[in-house]
């Protein structure tokens, strides 16, 4: 049924497009590149839909359990007869769900960018990079081999680097791109070592075999759990290190610092990469290895849960204080991913216990929709206002009606107000948390409330608050009247995504995507939802009262908790700590001494050997005094010396 060729085409179409643009299109038909990219991704999307349909409804389910299918696999790099990196495609509920999400969001962003990026100097390059990214992301989610996922993981990282640094003549963009790459690279180091550990003990890199070997009682499982280092078992080390990799990509505390800066890239890119797809790669990775986490090493899963919930809460607090709208969204992304993470963390494997897993994937799905929408909406606003700062905005609801409505929908969705998409997924996460860990549940609920608050703070600040910002009213006078809300290509994705944010929650996720492939029936407790929804509503109300009209209340609030505000505003100085460690500690204490040592000690030794030789040469020059009798004395003493030495001493 499932044609391997067609599935392979899903990731390959974008990369063909990239190659075509890079080699030919950039010079031959730069204007057409956008269209080319969009068409190729449309193709991918259609194929994904077909594949998803076939998988979920025709071939995927055997005996009521969704199977893992591997339509394509070939040996890419053999290490030893058993261990090799294979390039393959692994279809299971989460990967099918992911290709749908990725191709869809990517398609939206492609369409949106047709308008947004029009007239950019590097328009063609932009689409090329988008194609590269989409390819990498699709490759990542379809990977059948843990090393394959690492390969695409890195590729995703570099496309992100290229796209963040798209405006390469802006030093801040360059710095942000560099930061994003390096921080994630650092996390990837953990991932890599994790892979090495897992592969070493399990003797395979293939996901299926790996999971089988490390979840059922085998020699490999015994070996990996019995080996320990610094009090932790090798399995724990491996899983935690892999999670560090995931945490880096998914911007979990303390590896989140790159995400807000990554907003230097073009806004559609932020929507695609830094909101909907790439950043959930970490969640996806944990979900991919979930059986191992859950069945063999629950303590590693606890780490996931606590890191997730902390990041979620931490980011939410910071988000309340930021004034750059994209940064607010970035922190909100971090917060929501934290949600997904801890949902995985509190989940068990299979059946009822797998609720968290399902909820996490569900939230991933819905979040992709509304977060992409938020970013695209923000992009439209920025496009209109030419600023990222909240203070430059206000009262835009009249000027940008479509954006306003869709943005509101997205905000409601993220705040978890029924019946928007976010409500359903969030509710299930909270339920899962409630079942397993009350502390996490409480924090999660509070976070949900804060989320509602800062999202509506954002919403009100942009679309209400001041009637019209001075800059804009001046702008109108200056002939900016032609300034419309945006082209059709920009508005269409907003509308589509808005619609989806409304209805995505009704997807029967429990039937499709579960930890063990079996159907999971979730019960809907109306009573359980009351508290979170009320809290969220309270958050919205607070935001309403603070930001609907310009007033002094926010300032009073700030003054009342000045310290917290200052810390949160400065992102709790995590950046500064990093800066201190890298610039001061690593550069000054390792790099500089290493360079100095090399030039002076190592090289110095080499030079010293030469100098000593030369010095010796000078110091013995008096032997050759030019006086014949001295020569003869040397000669004669040589003779005597030889006689003494060789006849009497050295027999």
């Amino acid at each position, binding site marked *: 049924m499932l044609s391997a060729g067609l599935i392979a085409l899903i990731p390959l179409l974008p990369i063909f497009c990239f190659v075509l643009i890079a080699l030919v299109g950039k010079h031959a038909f730069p204007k057409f590149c956008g269209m080319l990219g969009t068409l190729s991704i449309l193709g991918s999307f259609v194929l994904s839909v077909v594949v998803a349909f076939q998988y979920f409804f025709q071939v995927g389910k055997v005996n009521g359990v969704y199977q893992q299918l591997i339509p394509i696999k070939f040996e890419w790099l053999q290490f030893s007869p058993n261990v090799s990196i294979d390039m393959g495609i692994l279809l299971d509920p989460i990967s099918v769900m992911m290709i749908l999400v990725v191709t869809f969001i990517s398609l939206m962003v492609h369409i949106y960018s047709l308008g947004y990026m029009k007239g950019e100097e590097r328009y063609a390059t932009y689409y090329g990079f988008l194609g590269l990214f989409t390819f990498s992301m699709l490759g990542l989610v379809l990977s059948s081999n843990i090393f394959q996922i690492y390969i695409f993981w890195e590729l995703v990282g570099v496309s992100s680097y290229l796209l963040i640094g798209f405006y390469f003549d802006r030093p801040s963009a360059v710095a942000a791109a560099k930061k994003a790459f390096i921080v994630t690279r650092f996390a990837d180091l953990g991932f890599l070592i994790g892979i090495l550990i897992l592969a070493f003990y399990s003797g395979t890199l293939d996901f299926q075999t790996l999971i089988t070997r490390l979840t059922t009682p085998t020699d490999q499982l015994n070996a990996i759990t019995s080996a320990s280092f610094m009090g932790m078992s090798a399995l724990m080390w491996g899983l935690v290190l892999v999670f560090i990799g995931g945490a880096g990509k998914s911007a979990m505390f303390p590896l989140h610092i790159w995400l807000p800066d990554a907003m230097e890239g073009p806004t559609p890119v932020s929507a695609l990469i830094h909101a909907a797809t790439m950043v959930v790669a970490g969640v996806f990775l944990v979900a991919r290895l979930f059986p191992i986490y859950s069945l063999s090493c629950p303590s590693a899963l606890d780490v996931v849960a606590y890191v997730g919930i902390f990041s979620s809460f931490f980011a939410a607090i910071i988000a309340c204080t930021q004034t750059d709208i994209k940064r607010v969204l970035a922190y909100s992304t971090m917060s929501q991913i934290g949600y997904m993470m801890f949902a995985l963390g509190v989940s068990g494997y299979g059946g009822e216990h797998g609720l968290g897993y399902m909820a996490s994937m569900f939230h991933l799905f819905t979040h992709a929709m509304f977060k992409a929408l938020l970013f695209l909406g923000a992009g439209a606003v920025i496009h209109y206002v030419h600023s990222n700062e909240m203070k430059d905005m206000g009262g835009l609801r009249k000027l940008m009606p479509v954006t306003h409505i869709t943005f509101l929908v997205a905000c409601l969705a993220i705040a978890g107000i029924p019946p928007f998409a976010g409500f359903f997924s969030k509710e299930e996460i909270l339920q899962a948390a409630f079942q397993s860990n009350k502390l996490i549940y409480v924090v999660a609920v509070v976070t949900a409330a804060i989320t509602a608050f800062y999202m509506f703070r954002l919403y009100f600040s942009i679309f209400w608050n001041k009637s019209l910002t001075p800059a804009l009213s001046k702008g109108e006078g200056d002939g900016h009247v032609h300034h419309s809300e945006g082209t059709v290509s920009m508005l269409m994705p907003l509308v589509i995504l808005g619609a989806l944010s409304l209805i995505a929650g009704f997807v029967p996720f429990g039937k499709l995507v579960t930890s063990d492939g079996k159907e999971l029936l979730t019960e809907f407790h109306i009573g359980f939802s009351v508290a979170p929804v009320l809290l969220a509503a309270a958050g919205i109300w607070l935001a309403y009262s603070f930001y609907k009209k310009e007033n002094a209340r926010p300032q009073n609030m700030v003054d009342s908790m000045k310290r917290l505000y200052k810390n949160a505003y400065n992102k709790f100085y995590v950046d500064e700590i990093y800066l201190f460690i890298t610039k001061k500690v690593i550069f000054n204490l390792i790099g500089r001494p290493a360079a100095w040592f090399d030039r002076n000690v190592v090289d110095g030794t080499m030079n010293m050997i030469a100098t000593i030789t030369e010095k010796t040469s000078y110091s013995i020059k008096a032997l050759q005094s*030019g*006086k014949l009798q001295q020569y*003869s004395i040397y000669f*004669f003493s040589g003779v005597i010396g030889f006689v003494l030495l060789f006849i009497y001493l050295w027999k």
Partner: protein
Amino acid sequence: MGIGLLHILFVSIALFFIGVYGFLTRRNMITMLMSIELILNSININFIAFNKFLYSDKLDGLFFTVFIITIAAAEAAVAIAIIINLYRNYKSIDIEDADTMKY
């Protein structure tokens, strides 16, 4: 007990060292040349003595002596010629003065 090999060898060794000493200490090149002759003579004495006392059936040592004397003469001739030429250039036959080339 007459004069035996050892006595003669003693003389020759003495001559040898006198010659060496002279060669190493005299600053006049001609004197150095004379010291060389002393050494050669000590060698001659050796040869003759060995020949006479130990191997009197053959005349190897004797012949060698004859050749040494001849060669010594040739050597002295060339050496003196060179020294004379050196004197032309240096206006001195002091060995210490001829040290233009060193190190």
